[in-house]
């Protein structure tokens, strides 16, 4: 770990320089809603006390639609063509701990029985410049899922606001090399080291271990009937989420006598998600689908990969059309869990 300092003006210049240098630079759009190459060049989003973007930066690593290969009928033979991947080096700036942490979490599933070359190449090709967060509202719960506003998980370089500048902490070798390569934009940091990375508050909104234990034993429970009752079965929650990663693979037309096999985002709340070819659907109700969403995030993924499939960013709750608040449900589970053990 190394500590450097970068003035806000220099950070702007660095981003400008990177763009000219053919980097793919991803920051927050002027409306604060999304991460994009068309980001706010004034870097106004580099404030740590504003809400997180409505949509996570996942879409730049796990694309909403990804061509796996193209095929074409060539007089009875099949011509296959590899997709062209954007191989430019990528720099993501302005991501909060609840965004950056999603990459190592997702990496587990994308490198489990099959290594997802598309995801891996993009991550390897990227420098993630995370930023300390000073925002907290009633939807946030990063502390409860093992993260914090200071969490460096997933960052290559971590910025800590320091007046009109940022203390830049290198987290990975990749981050270190990046700072060395663009050293002219940075200066030595001579101040006191930033406060120790205290992981979380003392008071938690819910106790994850109790929730997990309850989920282990309560696949059937009346709680689920109420939890999913007003869910509309749209995919807003899954699609704004930094860690939801389900996909569907489809063959679609692309040109004459030609097609593309594409990997598209899918969501467990959709009624078609688990529909079998026979017509049978094991998750035929909204209540069952909502149970799946909670269970996958807070039980199954942890059972399999020792990670919670949630960074506590609160995006799904802030944007839910029927105001379903995942934190409120987790608090409720925690309460039920405690009332049954006591």
């Amino acid at each position, binding site marked *: 770990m190394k500590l450097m300092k970068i003035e806000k003006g220099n950070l702007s210049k660095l981003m400008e320089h990177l763009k000219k240098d053919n980097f793919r630079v991803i920051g927050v759009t002027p*409306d604060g*809603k*999304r991460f994009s190459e068309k980001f706010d060049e004034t870097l106004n989003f580099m404030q740590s006390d504003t809400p997180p973007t*409505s*949509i996570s930066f996942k879409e730049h690593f796990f694309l*909403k*639609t990804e061509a796996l290969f193209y095929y074409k009928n060539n007089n009875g033979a099949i011509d296959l063509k590899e997709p062209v991947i954007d191989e430019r080096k990528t720099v993501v700036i302005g991501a909060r701990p609840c965004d950056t942490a999603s990459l190592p979490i997702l990496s587990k599933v994308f490198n489990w029985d099959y290594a997802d070359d598309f995801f891996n190449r993009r991550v390897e090709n990227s420098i993630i410049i995370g930023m300390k967060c000073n925002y907290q509202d*009633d*939807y946030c719960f990063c502390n409860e899922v093992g993260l914090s506003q200071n969490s460096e998980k997933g960052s290559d370089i971590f910025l800590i606001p320091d007046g009109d500048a940022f203390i830049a902490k290198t987290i990975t070798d990749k981050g270190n090399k990046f700072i060395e390569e663009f050293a002219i934009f940075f200066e030595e940091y001579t101040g006191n080291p930033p406060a120790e990375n205290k992981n979380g508050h003392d008071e938690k909104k819910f106790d994850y271990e109790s929730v997990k234990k309850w989920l282990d034993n309560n696949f059937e429970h009346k709680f689920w009937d109420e939890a999913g*009752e*007003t869910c*509309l*079965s*749209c*995919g*807003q929650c*899954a*699609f*704004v989420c930094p860690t939801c990663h389900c996909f*569907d693979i*489809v063959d*679609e*037309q692309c040109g004459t006598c030609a097609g*593309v096999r*594409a990997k*598209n*985002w899918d*969501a467990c709340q*959709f*009624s*078609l998600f688990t529909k079998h070819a026979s017509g049978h659907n094991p998750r035929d109700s909204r209540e069952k689908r909502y149970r799946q969403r909670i269970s996958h995030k807070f039980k199954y993924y942890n059972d399999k990969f020792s990670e919670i499939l949630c960074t506590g960013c609160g995006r799904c709750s802030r*944007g839910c*059309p*029927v*105001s*379903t*608040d995942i934190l*409120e449900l987790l608090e409720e589970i925690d309460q039920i869990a405690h009332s049954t053990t006591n």
Partner: protein
Amino acid sequence: MDQLRSVCRQAISENKAAFIIGYTEDKHHHLKPFIAHNVEETEKLTFNCNAVNNLAVFIHRFHNPSQGKIGIVLKPCDLKAINALVQENRVKREDLYVIGVNCSGVVKDQNKEFSKENTQIKCRSCASKTPAWFDVVVGESAEFELPEDDMAILMKQIDEMTPEQRLEFWNAEFEKCLKCYACREVCPMCYCEQCIADKTEPRWIESSSTTRANFTWNMIRAFHQAGRCIGCGECDRVCPADIPLSLLNRKMGMVAFKEFGYRHGTDMNAPTLIGTFSTSDHEEFIR
């Protein structure tokens, strides 16, 4: 809100309704849809300027005439959806127990106080603060200052564009689409047993989220809403990508009114535009 709770309590205890689809307050002091299944649960019902959802969408899920009538809390604007659904034979008037609420506008952002700027877009063109019909009505409506209708301004700008500019505008908007289908799920008028977007044999609409496929999805939805949208603006409200979806439906509605003098959802006894043929129908605009 004692009045609302009292009529809802009465509705269930006197068997006027089997349950009530209404609003409840969450810990953020926001209102969200809530189903009161019994007298005790009616205590959780409430209504204020945070009641943004159009609850008519829940009719489709809970419509089971054998269980008894559906009690539903409706703002004057949302009542238009019920009119439209009666017109389309989706629900029978007699299967509903409508608790109308006099409305003084609803907020755009539930985290902020109600103000001229903080009003839902639909309120900006709303002229009905009292429900046109009901089984019982509660609350008082107060006059409130209406801000400029942003959508009308945007519509004017788009009308003045060349077709190429318009295509560019919509392509840029649809590129943002995530295909989460929140627009469809929240819409009281989107009730097909199987949506065309979910049909896989054949697949009419590509499920990929490319600009072209996003364009197809959003245009087909707009076509299916032509002369049917009742303008509740829920699609705009829930779109995570902030696409001004209701603009398309509003334009279609304006065309329907201009060409056929028809507005969907204003009269539950009127025949539907799409379901009626008249030899005097205008045809000149069909090209």
